Structures are given as structure tokens and as C-alpha cells.
């Protein structure tokens, strides 16, 4: 059993005896042409390392850096082009945002409505409080069919609950059929992006993975994307044609009709949703939309935000069971797993509006540098940073997920592209405040600094004294005028950046000097009576303060 930053992993349990090498390829070491540095974590929403620790490691991965820079810039440009051609994009975002706010506020009634409609159309609805319950339900359903293999459509929620691993422990092999999920599964890796889980792999790594692990890859396989995709097609086709049970997630569930939607590109979704006899769909309780008509909003928002296409190649919509067409047994598993906890936070619940498009990942300058694995959760990027800690809650001060709300510069690029207008920067700040409030009473360096700064900045006199005390920086800076090296934690700054010494004269001192001779107005502020071009020349003043050595 290998370890990941001290946490035991379940890699061994993942391997199943199988005629092909897929899934759960034997062996634990990487092949010669690809890096295997992300073993399976024990908890899909809490991998073990803090964000700064994991990010530091990721930043040193040159292959990852290059792959990510290429992939994110490509998809950013595609999205911008197709969003730019929609004249009512902002109105669609407003609609998406307000519909989702309505869903969250009315979730109890909408869930019951969905259940009623799915049941009326021949589906069976199951409820799962957490990952373990959901996995047990799915396992029991598969076992009841007598099958030991299932095909799977790419689904974030089954990643979230670790379904494949749970099925493997019960002797059921789950075959991922999305190309990127196949790559991740064959490499015994973890996904690093919501939409493109293998975004961290380049074509030559994928070729090596296929050759080593697929079992039936053509020996003369090149690294041309078309050839790689055709190898995957050939590999999976036999499975599709013989599979009896499929497992999917859902992009949307329509409460007023009981209709479910899966949005995809490759056709693997259609294969799984159409050909097997039994279909098991797992979805988070937040995935609802109220009415069928609302699809006109979300199907306009999702593909353009997600893959940068006007519409994705295939969308499947089904309602319960249709006699003679598609699976004749349909189960819907409704998963809570922390969602009701997030719902109870009147600010934080906005994170549940997410439709998993991943636009926020693609524009995030932090994600672009560190990739998805650094977030230590199957939900990476800006949305992961606000969703993961709410789903898991905090286990205490050493919980690595506490670091996620700080994994952002609050630059706001994520909010601008979010199709349902989730104000991620404000949510990050809210979660920071929530943590600070929960942690009150425990002395921390940051807390002490913030309290001190609050004390100083609440009164101008104190602030002015602090400014004067800042003259010490001129000593640190010496004659250079800049501070090039500070002890820890200041070294966090000066390792890569100089810090200017404080000027000899603060602005307020300059103002007092400049405007001292002028009249004092009734409120005590002195204002300038200087004529626009008269009096002391600004440049002369500047020169004076810069070049005279008089200490203040």
C-alpha cells in the first residue's frame, strides 16, 4: 500500500482481476512515459495536503505547467468567441442565476415533485444521506442484476462518493467510458478538471498510458489525437454492446416532468443511457431545475461556458422508463452528502447553483499554474474552493480544506464567466470570515496582526504614529532604498520581490507641510489654496523630499 503525504491509499483494492487491463490496471508504478504522482486519496473531497503544500509541488511539474497553459488558453479563447456572439448572454445569465436561487429556496417542494414524476413514469427513486449510503444503494442495485461489470458515463458526483472504488471492493468492475475518464482510470490517476479530467496529460503521455494499460491498443499507435481517440473507440465498443448495467450522473433534473438530462460530446453517454437494460443515475439534490421550459436557459448557458461550443454534440433527455426504448429499469439516487449543510448557509448556498461547466477553472490564474490536484478534491478550481469546504465542513484547525478559501487572489475572473453568476470572490471572503469566526478565542499570528491593525486603523493618531515607526524600514533598506531580504515570514515576500522602504515623508505629512500655511476650514481640514500653477512647483517639492537628507 502506497501512501500519499502520509495517508494510506486504497490503490490495491482498486485492482480487479479482469481479462482486459481496464479498469484498475495491475501494478502501481507508472510506465516509462508518464508520471504517476497522484495516488488515490482515501477521501475524494479531502486528499490530505493543504493547498499551499500541494500547489508548491505542482508548480515544479514542468509537464503539468505546459499542458495546463496550453489547454486553458485554448478553451478560454473558444468560450470567449461563442459567448461573444450571443446578444442576450447577460440576460441568460440573469435567468440562470435567478432560477437557481429559486431552486435552492424551494428545494423541499421541488425534490418531492421530482420524485413524484419520476416514480409516475416507472423510475425508482432512492435517497442517500452520504457517500456510504449512496455507494451501498448502487452496489445493491448492481448485485440484484447479477452483473459484475458496469459501464459509466463521466460523472462528478460518482467521483465525489468514490463509487468505482466502492464497487471494486464488492467485486464489481466499473468501466469509465468518457475518453478523459478512461485515461485517468487506466493511469490509476485522479481527475484534475471538472470537464477535461485528463487536462494534465499531454498526447505522448496518453499514448504511453494506452500502450501500457489498455490491453488492446494497436502496437503501432502514434500520439496523434485522432489515433488515440480511435483506439479508445475500438476498446470500448465491445463493452457498450454487451453492457447490461450503466451508471450515470445527471446535468439537470426537471422537477415538473421528472425528466433527466445528460450533456456530452463523444456518444459514450448515449451508449450508456440507451443500450443497457438497467440504468442507475446518481445526482446531487441541487441539480434540479423547476420546469422543462427552463432547459432553454441552461442548455444555452452550459455548452458555451463549458466546451466553448454553441451546443454540445449530444444531449440525452429521458423520463422514467420508455417501453421498448432504452433501459427498462431506471433508478435515481438522490444524494445529500453535505449539500443540505451548505443550503443552511444563506450566503454559502450560492455555491450549490453550480452547473459544473468549469469555465471558472479555465480562467483562473491560480488554477492555470497549479492544476486541479492541488485543490485536494474532485472539485478543483475556484468553484471547488467554495464548494468542497462547505460539503465536508471543517474537522478542526488542522483540516487541509481550511486552506481552500485562501487559494485565490480574488481577481474576479471566475465571477465574470460563471453562467449562473455565482459571486465566487464574495463566497471565498464569506468562508474566510466563517473560519475566522469559528476560530475566535484561539490565538493565531494572523488574528493578532489583524487585531493590531484594526486598533491602529480605527484612529488616525495611532495610524500616524505607526507610520512614523515605519521609519525602521529605512534602516532595513539601508542605502539601497529597497528591502531585499526579510526574515520569515517576511521572506515569503522578499524571496521573489523587493519591498520599498517607507518614504521619509508620508502623504499626510506632505499635506500638512504643503497646506499648513493655508486657511483652516470649519471642520478642521486644511485645504489647498495653492493656485493651479502658482506657488511651489510640484517637481521642486518632489525633488526636495527625494534628495535632501533631512530626517523627519
Amino acid at each position, binding site marked *: 500500500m502506497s501512501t500519499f503525504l502520509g495517508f494510506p491509499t486504497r490503490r490495491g483494492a482498486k485492482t480487479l482481476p479482469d481479462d482486459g487491463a481496464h479498469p484498475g490496471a495491475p501494478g502501481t508504478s507508472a510506465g516509462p512515459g508518464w508520471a504517476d504522482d497522484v495516488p488515490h486519496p482515501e477521501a475524494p473531497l479531502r486528499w490530505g495536503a493543504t493547498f499551499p503544500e500541494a500547489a508548491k509541488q505542482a508548480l515544479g511539474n514542468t509537464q503539468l505547467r505546459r499542458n495546463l497553459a496550453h489547454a486553458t488558453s485554448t478553451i478560454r479563447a473558444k468560450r470567449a468567441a461563442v459567448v461573444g456572439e450571443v446578444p442576450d448572454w447577460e440576460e441568460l445569465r440573469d435567468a440562470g442565476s435567478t432560477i437557481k436561487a429559486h431552486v435552492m429556496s*424551494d428545494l423541499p*417542494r421541488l425534490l418531492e415533485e421530482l420524485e413524484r414524476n419520476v416514480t409516475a413514469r416507472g423510475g425508482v427513486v432512492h435517497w442517500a444521506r452520504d457517500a456510504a449510503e449512496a455507494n451501498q444503494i448502487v452496489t445493491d442495485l448492481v448485485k440484484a442484476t447479477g452483473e459484475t461489470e458496469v459501464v459509466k458515463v463521466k460523472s462528478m458526483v460518482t467521483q465525489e462518493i468514490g463509487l468505482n472504488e466502492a464497487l471494486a471492493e464488492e467485486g464489481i468492475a466499473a468501466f469509465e467510458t468518457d475518453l478523459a475518464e478512461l485515461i485517468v482510470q487506466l493511469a490509476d490517476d485522479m481527475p484534475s478538471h471538472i470537464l477535461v479530467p485528463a487536462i494534465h496529460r499531454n498526447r505522448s503521455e496518453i499514448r504511453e498510458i494506452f500502450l501500457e494499460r489498455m490491453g488492446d491498443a494497436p502496437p503501432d499507435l502514434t500520439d496523434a489525437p485522432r489515433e488515440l481517440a480511435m483506439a479508445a*473507440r475500438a476498446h470500448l465498443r465491445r463493452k457498450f454492446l454487451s453492457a447490461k448495467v450503466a451508471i450515470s450522473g445527471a446535468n439537470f433534473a426537471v422537477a415538473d416532468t421528472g425528466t433527466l438530462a445528460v450533456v456530452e460530446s463523444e*456518444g459514450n453517454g448515449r451508449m450508456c443511457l440507451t*443500450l443497457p437494460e438497467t440504468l442507475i443515475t446518481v445526482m446531487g439534490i441541487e441539480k434540479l431545475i423547476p420546469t422543462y421550459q427552463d432547459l432553454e436557459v441552461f442548455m444555452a448557458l452550459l455548452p458555451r461556458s463549458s466546451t466553448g461550443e454553441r451546443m454540445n454534440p449530444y*444531449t440525452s433527455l429521458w423520463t422514467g422508463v*420508455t417501453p421498448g426504448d432504452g433501459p427498462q429499469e431506471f433508478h435515481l439516487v438522490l444524494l445529500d452528502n453535505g449539500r443540505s449543510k451548505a443550503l443552511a448557509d444563506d450566503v454559502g448556498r450560492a455555491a450549490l447553483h453550480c452547473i459544473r461547466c468549469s469555465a471558472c477553472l479555465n480562467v483562473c490564474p491560480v488554477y492555470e499554474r497549479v492544476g486541479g490536484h492541488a485543490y485536494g478534491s474532485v472539485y478543483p478550481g475556484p468553484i471547488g474552493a467554495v464548494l468542497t469546504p462547505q460539503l465536508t465542513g471543517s474537522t478542526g484547525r488542522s483540516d487541509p480544506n481550511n486552506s481552500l478559501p485562501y487559494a485565490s487572489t480574488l481577481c474576479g475572473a471566475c465571477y465574470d464567466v460563471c453562467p449562473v453568476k455565482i459571486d465566487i470572490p464574495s463566497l471565498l471572503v464569506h468562508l474566510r470570515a466563517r473560519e475566522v469566526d469559528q476560530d475566535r478565542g484561539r490565538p493565531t499570528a494572523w488574528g493578532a496582526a489583524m487585531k493590531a491593525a484594526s486598533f491602529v486603523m480605527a484612529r488616525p493618531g495611532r495610524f500616524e504614529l505607526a507610520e512614523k515607526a515605519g521609519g525602521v524600514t529605512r534602516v532595513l533598506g539601508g542605502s539601497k532604498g529597497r528591502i531585499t531580504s526579510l526574515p520569515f515570514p517576511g521572506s515569503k515576500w522578499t524571496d521573489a520581490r523587493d519591498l520599498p522602504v517607507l518614504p521619509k515623508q508620508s502623504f499626510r505629512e506632505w499635506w500638512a507641510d504643503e497646506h499648513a500655511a493655508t486657511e483652516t476650514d470649519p471642520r478642521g481640514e486644511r485645504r489647498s489654496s495653492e493656485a493651479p500653477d502658482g506657488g511651489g512647483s510640484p517637481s521642486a517639492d518632489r525633488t526636495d523630499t527625494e534628495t535632501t537628507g533631512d530626517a523627519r
Partner: protein
Amino acid sequence: MSARDDILARVRAAVINDGAHLGDAVAEQAPVSRGYRTTGEHSPGSAEAIEILVDRLVDYRAIVHRAATTADLARTVGELLADARSVVVPPALPAAWTSALTAGTAVVHDSRDDRRTAAELDQVDAVLTASRLAVADTGTIVLDGADDQGRRAITLVPDLHVCVVRTEHVVHTLPEAVTILAAHPTRPQTWISGPSATSDIELSRVEGVHGPRTLHVILLG
């Protein structure tokens, strides 16, 4: 307490306060904003709408054909399927559409009551169907399982799909399409926007993965 009751109790506790539903307050104070376009500037079946549709389809690398009459359509079908050994058709496909097939192309019938297996469909070269409607803005063709479109499996397994879109069924915008589809929301629907594709390898688009690798669209009318 069952998981169902427990979860419902939790979500109720989150949004119901002293019997007051947050949903009612939100509906009243922040109603759903629907300022987006619900109809396009081009009417269904208009030359402009069709031009946009063709542009989008070509962009997705579907192959577009025009047929003014049923006879034109039959001729085009015959040409497109000249090399196909077999073609599967849904139960209520107009018979005239297959009237110009060559003798070398066997017609395979499939319906909900008389289903071909996946393995059988895998041996069929092509599929010919009608469609419910098409959306010009997005280049999307929708099949809803009606008898001229058939079961979902027949348009999935064969490698070549010839899909007929009647020009009067071409709407400009997605909301117009959803309004039409909402008449039968529970029918199994497949929305098709070009051949299957993947961008999973370095975001490089590869067309033709698991669905039909070739999509011919014949605009009829």
C-alpha cells in the same frame, strides 16, 4: 428515520423558518428574470433561419444536402447509401424516402415492438430517420422518438446517420424549440449537434468517437 425523511427534514430546516418558505419570499422579492430572447428575428422555415442552420452544421462538419421534393430526397438518399450494404429505418418512415435505394442496400426494420439488438445494429452500415425539429442558432437537430425517428439505439450504433430535416421545422432559437418540445416533454429525446466529438486530448477536437462518425443532413422543402 428513513434517509428520505432525514434529507427532506434537513433541506426544510434550511429554507423553512417558522412555517415561512424561503421559496415564497424569493418568488415574491426576486422573481425569475426572463429578459432573454424567446423568439428569434427569423421565422420558422425562413431562408435566413435555414442559412444559419446550414452554416452551423457545416461548422460541426456535418454534411448538408438540399432536397426540394420527395423525389429529390429519395435520389439523394440513394446516392449517399449507394455503398451501404444495409440501412435501418424506423417504423413510420415515409416509404418514398427509400424508393431510390439500390438493390445492394438491404432495408432493416426496427420498432419498439420489434427491436434489433445492439449486436445486430452493429452490423448495419447506416440509419435513415426524420427529425422533430432543428435549431438554427446552435445547429442542433432534435429526435424525439416518434415513429418516423425511431428508438434511440438505431441512430446511435450504425456509423452513418442520414437525417432528414423538414425546412418548416427549422426554428431560429433554442427557446422556440423548447416550446415545441414541451408539448411532449417525456418522450426520450436526443439533441444532435454535429457528429460525436472529443476534445479530451490537449483540447484538440477529434470528430467521430462513439456515435455515428458521419452525419448527413438533408433539408427537405
